[in-house]
């Protein structure tokens, strides 16, 4: 079984600050990390590797600095890694990005594709499902657990919904998007940290994949960001002294008036 895991390098949002003047994210000096859902996807793939001898290939699309994220995945135990990088890919929205990644996966060949559910910088949760549509393979989103049925050579996936779980069994090609709650990603280990130094990261450029130039980059991206704004918090505090029943009613009314319930 060949597993391809799609990962994204994102700024560590726990350390990010907002520029008060421009209202944009201050990315300077903020360390980059593997997106948490994606790191768990690497973990899920490595667990499958241990269970059924799968090979794990990690890919990412991004600038050359994204090599560090790939090398971190190698140091966790992934077998090989590819960086999808080309000027022609710059400015891609989720649709154009998924078009490019799907073309790269087609070139590399995979039995199973793992993606994190969503990235902490964009929070769209669109790229995984879009890749599966481009590839024309089934998708299972929101995986909270993945098991391998050795007898049938199938994957048993527990999908998480708001109020329930659904268990699906899948055999053959598929794409699974994974929740960070599936498991805690393992630490990098010293053996693989040293071994990754001897591994080459394959670079996949525009010329390596079959993709319509009109469907990628800025011109292939139907999404246009009109504006971004920071939420303003109203810090006014109103104190009411009421008996419990009237207090409860006052709270409900206040929440209703703000359309929160």
């Amino acid at each position, binding site marked *: 079984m060949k597993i391809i895991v799609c990962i994204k390098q994102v700024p560590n949002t726990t350390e990010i600050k907002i520029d008060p003047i421009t209202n944009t994210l201050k990315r300077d000096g903020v360390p980059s990390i593997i997106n948490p859902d994606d790191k768990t996807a690497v973990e899920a793939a490595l667990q499958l590797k241990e269970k059924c001898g799968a090979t794990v290939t990690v890919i990412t699309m991004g600038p050359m600095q994204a090599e560090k994220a790939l090398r971190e995945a190698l*140091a966790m135990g992934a077998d090989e890694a590819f960086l999808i990088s080309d000027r022609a890919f710059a400015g891609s929205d989720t649709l154009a990005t998924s078009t490019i990644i799907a073309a790269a996966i087609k070139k590399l060949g995979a039995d199973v594709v793992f993606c994190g559910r969503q990235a902490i910088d964009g929070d769209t949760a669109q790229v995984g499902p879009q890749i599966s549509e481009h590839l024309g393979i089934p998708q299972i989103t929101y995986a909270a657990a993945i098991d391998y049925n050795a007898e049938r050579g199938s994957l048993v996936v527990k999908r998480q919904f708001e109020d329930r779980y659904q268990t699906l069994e899948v055999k053959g090609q598929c794409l699974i998007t994974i929740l960070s709650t599936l498991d805690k990603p393992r630490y990098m280990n*010293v053996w693989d940290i*040293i071994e*990754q130094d001897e591994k080459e990261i394959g670079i996949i450029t525009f010329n390596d994949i079959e993709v319509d130039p009109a469907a990628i980059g800025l011109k292939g991206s139907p999404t246009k960001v009109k504006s971004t704004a920071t939420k303003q918090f109203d810090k006014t505090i109103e104190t009411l002294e009421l008996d419990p029943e009237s207090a409860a009613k006052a709270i409900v009314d206040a929440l209703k008036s703000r359309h929160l319930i």
Partner: protein
Amino acid sequence: MANYKSILFEQMIKDFAENEVKPLAQEVDEQERFPAETVEKMAKLGLMGIIVPKQYGGAGGDYRMYISAVEELSKACGTTGVVLSAHMSLCVAPILEYGTEEQKQKYLPDLASGRKIGAFGLTEPNAGTDAANQQTTAVEMDDHYLLNGSKIFITNAGYASTYIIIAITGKGPKGPEMSAFIVESAFDGFSVGKKEKKMGIRGSSTCELIFENVKVPKENLLGKRGDGFKIAMKTLDGGRIGIAAQALGIAEGALDATIAYVKSRKQFNRSISQFQNTQFVLADLATRVAAAKALVYVATDAKQNKLPTLSVNAAQAKLYSSETAMEVTTKCVQLHGGYGYTREYPVERMMRDAKITEIYEGTSEVQRMVISGALLRK
């Protein structure tokens, strides 16, 4: 090209120390409990065999990675730092450097994988700084040496299965002839005696070792017969870098905890970080820590590259780092005020842990002897 190996190793060991070691530090100290579960986790990540070549089951890493591991672990917990330092510098390293091919194949895979922990025995009740005054004897018989005597203050004792033991094997031209042996805890007649109750590094197991007619096979002689004292001194040169890194880590941990504390502690309606005394004390401590760090990594490079300056570099690193650790932790307790003296805050533990770094693997006075000896021999 970026050196991803160092970047990734540093990221891993920092995450590991912060998430796995730090939460246990207080408990390990209070209960005087060996952090066996942490050592097991370290073994799974390859940390017990960082410097061991791949053909013996190690990771094939360099000395710098190992030293930075001791430093980062000690930032969180001085006990955990010395467990690794004693295992690697005092047992794995001498087998790597003086062992025969058979000894390496027999002992290194278990030590590198962490299935077994290593330790070293030189100190005796009457042989501390006067290390040559050994009483433990190893008498050569047909196919073995007969080991009798005892050792004290042995780090990792009880948890270790593989020990490097120094003993007298005869008379030499300038006094007793000493030799080094690889001794297994499973050998008949080997036993672990009294466990010391210590001021600091209380989770580290420090015990007496007793040898009663222990038959050590001849193939377990490490290096040549009569090379024991030389092997012990060279081994301690390496070990001192480990202890210097432990001291450095303790100082850094105390400084980090204190920086966070002075920002949140308010007196006279402002945080105490706004007082110039706090600012100047922190500036001086941070500068000392930076200087100690520079010395530790100069010595590390000397070890890695087998430079002739190693003895002096290691002595300077240990002398300066351990005295820095003592000064930094003492002043960090002071900046915490009364709270710093309680076990609610980590700095009192760090101050107790720091003290031993001025004593073991050669006291500060011994380091001064090594440094001045080299100066005056020129």
